[in-house]
């Protein structure tokens, strides 16, 4: 059984659409390996997932993907320049020590980068802080402030500012609600109405 035969999580489905057939992919924080398993089965993609959680490593091995148990916070120095077509980091940006350094590294290693993160600029977190004076807890950000792994939260505008200052070009942007659906409203007001942001990046 590979991931190709079971439905892919919605955000991963959007990412999968962006990845060309036969690409060499590095998946940072690959979780249970379902994205790579799906890409291997449907798009003849090859590559590796990086994952720190031991149970996820076992799940990825079970899914038949190459998984390397490594900590993203140790950096990616061991990977050679341009050794992958696409480097993906889905929902891990806000959990790493140095997100800016990691994004630069992604685009050193791969021709294309795909990054997704929960948008802290969404109206709900804004309202939580402005109105209730509380750190937001939501479906996209389910943890309390004291036990959250999300140590580097940012907004859509923050992220694009970071890209601009690092000469990184945004080639595609997709902003969706927590059910990973896009609408006219999330397209017009991405920073206010988008809960999850998906970016496709290239060196500028």
């Amino acid at each position, binding site marked *: 059984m590979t991931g190709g035969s079971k439905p892919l999580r919605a955000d991963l489905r959007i990412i999968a659409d962006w990845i060309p057939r036969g690409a060499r992919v590095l998946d940072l924080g690959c979780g249970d390996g379902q994205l790579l398993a799906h890409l291997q089965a449907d798009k003849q993609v090859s590559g590796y997932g990086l994952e720190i959680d031991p149970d996820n*490593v*076992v*799940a990825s*091995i079970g899914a*038949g993907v*190459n998984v*390397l*148990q*490594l900590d993203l916070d140790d950096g990616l120095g*061991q990977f050679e320049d341009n050794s992958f077509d696409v480097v993906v980091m889905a929902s891990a940006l806000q959990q790493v020590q140095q997100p800016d350094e990691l994004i630069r590294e992604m685009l050193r290693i791969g021709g294309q980068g795909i990054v997704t993160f929960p948008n802290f600029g969404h109206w709900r977190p804004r309202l939580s802080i402005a109105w209730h004076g509380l750190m937001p807890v939501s479906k996209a950000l389910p943890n309390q402030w004291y036990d959250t792994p999300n140590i580097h939260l940012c907004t859509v505008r923050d992220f694009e500012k970071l890209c601009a200052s690092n000469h990184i070009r945004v080639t595609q942007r997709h902003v969706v609600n927590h059910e990973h659906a896009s609408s006219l409203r999330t397209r017009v007001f991405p920073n206010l109405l988008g809960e999850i942001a998906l970016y496709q990046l290239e060196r500028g």
Partner: protein
Amino acid sequence: MGEFPADSVGLVEPQTLHVTEPLALDCGKQLDEYELVYETYGQLNADRSNAILICHALSGSHHAAGYHADTPDGKPGWWDKCIGPGKPLDTNRFFVVCPANLGGYKGSTGPASAHPKTGRPYGPDFPVITVGDWVRSQAVLREHLGIEQWAVVAGGSLGGMQVMQWAIEYPERLKHALVIAAAPRLSAQNIAFNEIARQAIVTDPEFHGGRYAEHGVVPRRGLMLARMLGHITYLSDEAMRAKFGRDLRDGRLNYGFDVEFQVESYLRHQGQSFVERFDANTYLLMTKALDYFDPAGLHDDNLQAAFAPATARFLVISFTSDWRFSPERSREIVDALVDAGKQVSYAEIVSELGHDEFLLDLPQYTHTLRAYLERVAREVNP
């Protein structure tokens, strides 16, 4: 065999392959004829695709699982925690083969065996043997068993080095390579430990230049010291602290030099029981094989280039508390395989006991092996 646990392979019997075709060795010498002693567990399937080769480490042998009839109450084989019905190396699904390495202390031809020309024990005349020599002898066994391709070649420590050698030298002969608690080459520190062990043996007055058998003695003190030193390096500081702390055997200091701390008593016991079963010349040979292994050395120190011929899928496993073959060393293997574009997974098992953890059954370790081998089993027994 009701007396054995349900997940044991039960009573096993070694088999012997007598080879008369000479084996050319890396040192330039050759073994004109030799015996390979091995055990097998499980059944070879109809298309002979479910065979797993196990490569043993320094103090291992062909007895990897189950029990021998002459020692039914004794300990099971050295990797019994992982080999058996329902265990990660599931003998209901795989045919597991474990040969004793040439130069070993029992089973296959080694320093204690009789030289075919003189009839006397080889002793120090047994040629220095390498990981490559072992793998070439295992290839003879493969041929004899009629196995075109191993589903898996697996091994820990020195065994992991043989796995890498298989993947490099006979790429088409294995589908999967399990490299556990290994290193791509020994560090200077690691060679240094081996050298102290060897010096302990060769300076023992009873060593007699390796001809101790002809003198009817055993270099007990030297071999015991070698094992005591080795044993410390196979355990972590935390493990020794947890097991012994500073506990005193008599509960008080005796202001003397006999055994006082529990750890001293333990080490002496380990050393003494090792002397009972192991051979000093074998210890010298095994440590040399460890020191010499260096596939990158043949490629301007480029490990990636050394792995270029490999086609197997790799699973590399290390243990966080292992300082003799640390995770950093396993990551060198992984990095080289990734750079060479090979299929590889890597698991770093959080552990406390040290190098010897690869022989045990930490849940994360067995889950990892199980998840990997489950896929292999479905591949070979669709």
